[in-house]
């Protein structure tokens, strides 16, 4: 579980600092993030591959009640993410090189392009850039704002490109110290999902989880 905690190698902070020094001034021209926000992101960098358990709550318009899925996430590189659902059913999603493959027991695997799942693409972009501490990359795709302090913080990402904005309204990442705990993705169609990772992955939830309760959890309130 603690793989997402910073296993700080000597090299990692140096890299982050040099990136901050060289890249930050040139990258952004409009709605630029504050220095504090950029610093926050750079602190999030961690070594790869990283694995964590997760709990995802998906609010789907077609359904009366949200879906609660539990399993683990493996983040191998910027283009590679594995997501294994273990309950309430088993399913493995592998994203690699722009292709998504969904495998279920006894069924032929579904394969499609990441471009057909823009919300997922947006999430993957924010997820991988965050875990890479890559403020520059993140700022290229999103308008970034942050809230809170170094101990308890919230990072809000609003897509810059129309193509992504058509599908994703905003991504809200909440965390503690240098560890993200929640990825809250709000889609334009009314659907949304909250992904709880790390120490929140096994948080106790109601049978029918409520958005408000999840928000509180993410912000570290009991």
């Amino acid at each position, binding site marked *: 579980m603690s793989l997402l905690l910073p296993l700080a190698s000597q090299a990692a902070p140096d890299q982050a600092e040099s990136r901050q020094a060289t890249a930050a001034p040139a990258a952004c021209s409009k709605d630029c993030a504050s220095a504090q926000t950029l610093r926050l992101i750079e602190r999030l960098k961690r070594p790869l591959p990283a694995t964590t358990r997760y709990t995802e709550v998906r609010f789907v*318009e077609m*359904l009366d009640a949200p879906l609660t899925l539990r399993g683990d996430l493996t983040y191998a590189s910027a283009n590679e993410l594995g997501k294994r659902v273990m309950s309430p059913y088993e399913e493995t999603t592998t994203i690699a090189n722009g292709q998504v493959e969904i495998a279920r027991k006894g*069924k032929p695997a*579904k394969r499609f392009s990441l471009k057909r799942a823009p919300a997922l693409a947006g999430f993957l972009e924010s997820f991988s850039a965050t875990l890479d501490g890559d403020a520059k990359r993140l700022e290229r795709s999103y308008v970034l704002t942050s809230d809170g302090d170094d101990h308890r913080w919230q990072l809000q990402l609003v897509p810059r490109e129309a193509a992504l904005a058509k599908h994703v309204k905003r991504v809200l990442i909440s965390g503690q110290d240098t560890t993200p705990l929640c990825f809250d993705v709000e889609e334009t169609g009314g659907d949304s999902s909250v992904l709880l990772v790390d120490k929140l992955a096994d948080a106790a939830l109601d049978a029918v989880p409520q958005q408000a309760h999840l928000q509180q959890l993410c912000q570290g309130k009991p």
Partner: protein
Amino acid sequence: MTLRARVTLLAVWLAVLAGLLFYVLSALKVSTDLRSFMPPARTPEQRLLLDEIGEGPGSRLLLLALHGDEPDALADISKALVLRIRDDKRFVRALNGEGDLGALAQDLLPYRYLLSPTLDTQAFDADYLRSELEQRVQDLGSPAAAWLKPLLGSDPTLEMLKLAEAWAPPGEPERYAEVWFTRDGKQALLLAETVAGGFDPSAQRDAQDALEQYFRDSSKDTHAQLVLSGPGVFTVRINATTSDEANRIGLFDSIGFITLLLLAYRRIGTVLAGALPLVSGGLAGMAALALLFGGAHGITLAFGFTLIGVAQDYPIHLFSHLSRERSPVTVAQLLWPTLATGVASTCIAYLAFFASGVDGLEQLAVFTIVGLATAALTTRFGLVHLLGSRPLDAAQSAWLAALWRRVAALPRPRWLAPLLATAAVVAVYFAPGSFWENNLAALTPAPLDLVAQDTRLRQELGAPDVRHLLVIEGDDADAVLAASEKLDPLLAQLQTDGAIAGYELPSRYLPSAATQRARQAKLPDAATLQPALAQALLGLSFKPGSFDAFARDVEAARTLAPLDAQRFFESPLGLRLKAQLQPRDGHWIGLVSLVGVKDSGALVALAARPDVPAHLLDLKHASESLVAAYRTRVLYSLAVAALLLVVVVSIALRRRRRVLQVLLPMAVTTLLILAALRLGGVSLSLFHLIALVLAAGLGLDYALFFEHVEDDEHEQRRTLHAILVCSASTFLVFLLLALSSLPVLRAIGATVTLGVVFNFVLALLLARPQREIRDA
């Protein structure tokens, strides 16, 4: 004739030629489709090949590969390219792997329950719906939710996806960013099917130029490059290299030929005027084709120009016999009986081709007869008046006189002809290898690197076999579709056995009416579906009314008239079905493409079974049998032509001995050429046959002139000069062709070169009258 009169004559002549040229350019349509050159079909296989499918759908497929840039850039180009190709009327379809869920037109959507095989094995009962809906819940929780969501309300069993999967080509390649890629991920792959047949070079070039243009438009600012392959690409490439090489050789030929004539006659004006009869003959021949047929096949023209090449000898005979003592007109009058005998007998012999009943050969006869006659008449009645009064007299040349004396001393062995003929027949009989080359493609082979590239792309794309095809025939479209459904399990078995890698049936797109009705009968009515759906939804958290659209579509599908071919043709997928299901004079045919044929024997065995409603078309075999049939026609025509020739020459020369002297060198030469070619390991093709005819025509002329010498020694020297120039120029022209790297040019060149040599020597040894020796 005065200079002024000569200039006027030349001006009028050139004006007439310009007029002819204009008429030919505007009225003569040159077709390049091999089919119009072929004889009428006799076997069902040939009929299918010629009338119904052209060269098979496999031959119309172009394989495209994009490489040289990042995969994402290539994928974008692939998508842009496909859109452009789909808008172009020259293409039946363009595929790059993008799943087009909207492929079924909006008004046909309820038909999905009749088109998809789900109901063959399933009922829409509570159990089945429950298991499907549970999976949909999981879909909503998965990343696929984004694109499945819009479908679910009306299609919870995802029939549209099943159809899209079924309609994907068999043996699909890998994908990246939704489009096909090679396994190594470096090349994006596409398929485009042209309307034009694969062996129609001009239409294929047109289509391929369009593709290149679309690629340039779509790939601006990238490093991407396009690789095109497929039978049509070979056709265009071979056509281009053949005409390039023929043009290059033609240029060298012209230079050599003009140099030779300048050396022989030392008068530039004479040499230039000498081109007029041949040009006149060629233009007149083409004008006659335009007038009588409205068009001509490219091969007819190529053969035709080869055959009328003999007309270049007519001015040479005239020039060589010129002297200060006689006017050109008098010389022409003296030569005319001999020349006219040669021309008339050749022309009458070509009448045999006119009766062959094959368009291409009839055109060839018209072109050759009109061309040769025009060239001879313009030499006799036009060219003579253009010549100056101070020509070079060949008889005055010292080296010619010396040569003449040696030639005159040559023996004329009577045993030579029978000996050579016997030896030639024996050699032909015992020469190894097959006598005939039926595979026309062997004469115009595709470059090996192109073939290797094609094989690689074909495997990656799972593109259909170009050679084998199953053909279903039926009274109507539905009968063909029903037969196609019967074939499905049989072919599936062959695929399991590994005999084929895949197949594409017309019924995959459109099931027969009976199948559609059977599925329709299994659709539940509202009173059955509603409770089943309600039961399936129990415990799942779908909002009420989520699947109202589904219930409406099922109800609508229950009363639909089965989808027929006509209506399907009008849908976006119509072209794909049209390529496989076609009406032909009162009946319908279905074409089954086969992919990766490994065991053609298994296909032959399958097609031979009485319960299999299709026959196997082996396109290679069918086209070879057509070529063989064509050759038979040519051979019959040649036999009749030879008879006619003997008759005409006999009438003209009257005495048996003279007839024999003229015909023997030609006949023996033909045997010797055959023997030489066969001993050289060459299998004979149509091109060899046509070249043999040209060689025979040359031989006839040489023999006629040698036989018809006057007693005057100077006149005899002039005849020797004429035949030397004729044979040397022809030898030069065809020797260069014989040295070509292209088998088709080599075939014509080698045959004629051999013919010139044998004819010249044999005419010298066999055709000259005996009295010459006495005189010498």
